[in-house]
């Protein structure tokens, strides 16, 4: 057992899941939300010459995906350190 107690193991996993769910919520909103479901409504706004919904579908979602993964990497490293389950 890498954790000092059962509670710590549970807390680590809970924090992990909550981080992943938050990031996946953003992942869903920028792609399925802005790029598909709300695309027509967003298209009334213009963003650097693009219709906003169209921009999210072809550019914005992808840029957001990259940022999401790096936030995850950073936050998970902090979490691993906090619970002392990081690799050497």
């Amino acid at each position, binding site marked *: 057992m890498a954790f000092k107690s059962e509670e710590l193991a549970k807390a680590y996993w809970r924090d992990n899941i909550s981080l992943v769910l938050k990031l996946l919520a953003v992942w869903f909103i920028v792609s399925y939300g802005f790029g*598909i479901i709300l695309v027509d409504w967003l298209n009334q706004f213009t963003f650097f010459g693009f219709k906003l919904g169209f921009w999210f579908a072809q550019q914005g979602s*992808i840029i957001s995906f990259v940022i999401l993964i790096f936030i995850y990497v950073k936050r998970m490293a902090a979490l691993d350190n906090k619970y002392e389950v990081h*690799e050497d």
Partner: protein
Amino acid sequence: MDIQTLTFIIVGATFALYIAIAIWSRAGSTSDFYVASGGVHPVMNGMATAADWMSAASFISMAGIIAFAGYDGSVYLMGWTGGYVLLALCLAPYLRKFGKFTVPDFIGDRYYSQTARTIAVICAILISFTYIAGQMRGVGVVFSRFLEVEIATGVYIGAVIVFFYTVLGGMKGITYTQVAQYCVLAFAYLVPAIFISFQMTGHILPQTGFGATIADGVSGEGQYLLARLDGLSEELGLAAYTSGLKSKIDVFAITCALMVGTAGLPHVIVRFFTVPKVRDARRSAGWALVFISVVYLTAPSIAGFAKVNLINTVNGPDMAGVEYDAAPDWVKNWEQTGLIKWEDKNNDGKMFYAGDERNEMTVDRDIMVLANPEIANLPAWVVALVAAGGVAAALSTSAGLLLVISTSVSHDLLKRTLTPNITDKQELLWARVAAAVAIALSTWFGINPPGFVAQVVAFAFGLAAASFFPAIILGIFYKRMNSTGAIAGMLVGVVFTLAYIIYFKFVNPAANTADNWLFGISPEGIGTIGMILNFIVSYVVHKLTGDAPQDTQDLVESIRYPKGSGAASSH
């Protein structure tokens, strides 16, 4: 120098580089061969993953598909990148901690079942093989145009090269070769895009250029490029570029199937076994997406520019059509390959492109990227560079897929299932034999393509989405999930998805319309429903048959935190 000589030189130089790398990084052990002994730096691994991921289809066809589909093409952009978020957050770190070579390894061990392992092996081989046949064809197409050889000769040349560095180098050789291939293909993709963006809008960055206004001296000057595209589309009876035709639910389902399918593709997942640490697996997925985005953010701009350029060239500045005799060389060059056709329906000697009965042009979407530099009158070396990029994309993906096939046969099928007593050396030999056989078979498919090569891509993603993804997610996040549930789920998911695609693509293609589709979802997006079915069936069957044994639950517990991860091993 003419285009052909330059193509010989540039493609030849890149080949020499790939082979040199393969010889320098020869694999000595099964661990080298399968996962490069887990010693690849995450940025390097990210780059290799990106090259592995971006196939001839991404490089050659994607921008063309978007050019003709407009907004609807977004499904590929979001689908083929969004999967990496799932990979990074939900799969890669845990599979790396688990520390085995292959996806069937995980399925077999996690579900303590040879049946589960065998199903996984069959799915892995099926998915990879579907994919690779198209790749070899891609190599053939690129060569036949630029080296002016028969498609078959092009396929043979490609096969020999791939054989060399897959069979010799294994994962180690492939990884470093793919790093080189990524550089070639990204450079080849960006250079023409930057040139064209600057020509048409004065923007250096194609990503902002295609939202900008058209530069002076280009027809439509002062208008926003996308507004002009929408205007032209309306005038010519095509669907508006920024809205699209597909129904919302279908766009949703296809995007989802591609995302989940991406996260479940064995040749992508296996990349995350090659890094030293769990933390590196997470970073590696991030870097992979950075490198993929370089190309994927450029593709829609190439699509927009190419479409405007095509309409301008064919219809002329006054939208009255251009005399065929005055057509630029590229129209005639590509006409010889049969990928552009002109039929003078109204006998006025002028070409005209439109979405209705006025149309006289048939333009294959695959040529948009390859012909783009010629359309924009770029120097010959750029044209040659694009050829080298297309070949790099096709070769890197074929190599990654071949590795999955050879690993599945030698490791999952022979070592773990049929003949567990073979030595490391014999296993390595079998891996090489399997790779050679797979190359021979895919060469044959590349030369004699079954008519359905283009259509079967839907299989690969649908299958991966409906089989592996739920089994792996449940395996990690739901530790009580048992083998019966997982097997039942995979079988139902795969059979349903296969049946749906086969019915609409092969048995009754005439019925392949939105009215007949389940919930209005096309065969391309049906993997989403297959995945949902898989989850439901797994859960219900698990509830009826009881929890997984305690030692399995402990195993799952142990892959949830990074501490104590070692290099990937076979046992």
